[in-house]
């Protein structure tokens, strides 16, 4: 993907296949090419004021043109999208920028592996493993595992954590967490089918 033209100064390389790859991942993608670059999405985005390089309008433009050089410079920000859908709400052409950015985040490991944020990816993986593994999400376990996986285990010893943990315990909520269990369908083949999908996706990421 990194071509000679891209690395030589003054020239921009365009990858014509990139847009197809991204837009094929948007479940409601039939309006993506209607984007007229009005910028209402970026003007509404809560992240753009915090990260000026995070701009849904620019992401769509760079994707349409396949300008991977410029996208690479911004790739570390793509995963920051909060999924608040303000952009999609206000888009005058129903382009659904939130899901374009989301699809873009799914191809980051393939095109810009150096931009993958290891800690954030580990936390997303924890979500995927838990939900596919048990069919339900244990929020306390998610919290603890996320801190452990990202090297923040000392924070688990903070007084606020102990206080909240104790409160969860005496109110019986800790017990409810342990009882969360798994849906019956997970024991009758669904877990296996879901795990296959997960592995297929993992392979796709690894192949990149």
């Amino acid at each position: 993907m990194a071509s000679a033209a891209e690395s030589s100064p003054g020239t921009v390389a365009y990858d014509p296949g990139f847009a197809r790859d991204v837009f094929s991942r948007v479940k409601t993608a039939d309006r993506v090419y209607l984007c007229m670059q009005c910028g209402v999405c970026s003007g509404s985005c809560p992240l753009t004021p915090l990260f000026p390089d995070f701009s849904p309008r620019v992401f769509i433009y760079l994707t349409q043109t396949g300008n991977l050089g410029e996208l690479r410079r911004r790739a570390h920000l793509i995963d920051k999208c909060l999924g608040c859908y303000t952009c999609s709400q206000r888009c005058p052409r129903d382009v659904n920028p939130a899901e374009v950015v989301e699809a873009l985040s799914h191809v980051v490991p393939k095109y810009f592996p150096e931009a993958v944020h290891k800690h954030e990816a580990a936390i997303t993986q924890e979500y995927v493993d838990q939900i596919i593994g048990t069919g339900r999400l244990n929020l306390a376990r998610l919290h603890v595992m996320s801190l452990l996986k990202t090297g923040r285990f000392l924070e688990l010893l903070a007084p606020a954590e102990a206080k909240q943990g104790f409160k969860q315990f005496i109110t019986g909520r800790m017990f409810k967490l342990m009882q969360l269990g798994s849906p019956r369908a997970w024991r009758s083949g669904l877990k296996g089918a879901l795990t296959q999908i997960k592995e297929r996706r993992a392979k796709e990421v690894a192949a990149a």
Partner: protein
Amino acid sequence: MKKVAYYPGCALKTIDRAYDDTSKYVAGSLGFALEEIGDYNCCGIGELKSQGEAGLMLPARNLMLAKEQFGAKDLVMSCSVCYHELARANAVLNKRADEKEKVNDLLRTGGGSGYEGDVEPRHIIEFLFNEVGVAGVKAKVKKPLTGLKVAPYYGCLYSRPSVYTGTARNPRMDDAERPRFMHALLEACGATTVSYGNETSCCGGRSLIQDEDTSFRLIYDTLSKAKAAGADVVALICPKCAGGLDIMQENVLKAAEKRESGAGKKGHIPIVYATQLIGLAFGASAGEMKLGDMETGAAKALSSIIR
């Protein structure tokens, strides 16, 4: 009492039981028994969208269960994230026959009957507003919340995006940019609502662990604006918002204090669920409304009403 299919979701079945219990209490007081669908699964919480049909099957399965077990046309839920995921699944399945086929294959693998995209997910606030109405709520109020200033916080996914929720498109639904249903329900209970500008802002819940700095800034913005507008409490309708605004508030304020001395105090405000406030107005006790589960001093802030 009319039976209604109800999807609790993982958060409400565990650490956010306060929202689960009070949703059932309020709906029950108004003549609707929320009956949980059996064998539910996680909605995917937005984190499985990269996993192909798995990310659609999870919400679709809950809708299928509502139909199998209750013959339901509607599935009521209190969590805005679940609501979004289920509404999104419906929108995609109704548009894409290929996705529907893949999802149905998976559902049948799990012993299900398949799902046609014909059960409508409904958020508890919209459900109460439309099925009971302001007059119906008013008639049940025993202890009006007179004098209480509430900042209603809708967050993102209750009203956005219209393509999934139908807000501002379907006449039954709330407004997308300026939702009023929670305002109307709380005002019917005698509370005063304050306007503070962040009613539908994002709390950054998705990045609460991944990128807490961003999340904390967005949360602080909402907390401090609500406080500056004179609110006594912020009312929520989503457990993910509660994770940031309530459970993490101490850390949010600490981070704000680090950025600017004195900022911490300007952001401290107790957080409650809207259903807890409505329940109190219906005469429930603080214990029944699980006010003690909240982390930011809700019980103390509401002491004048509880008595």
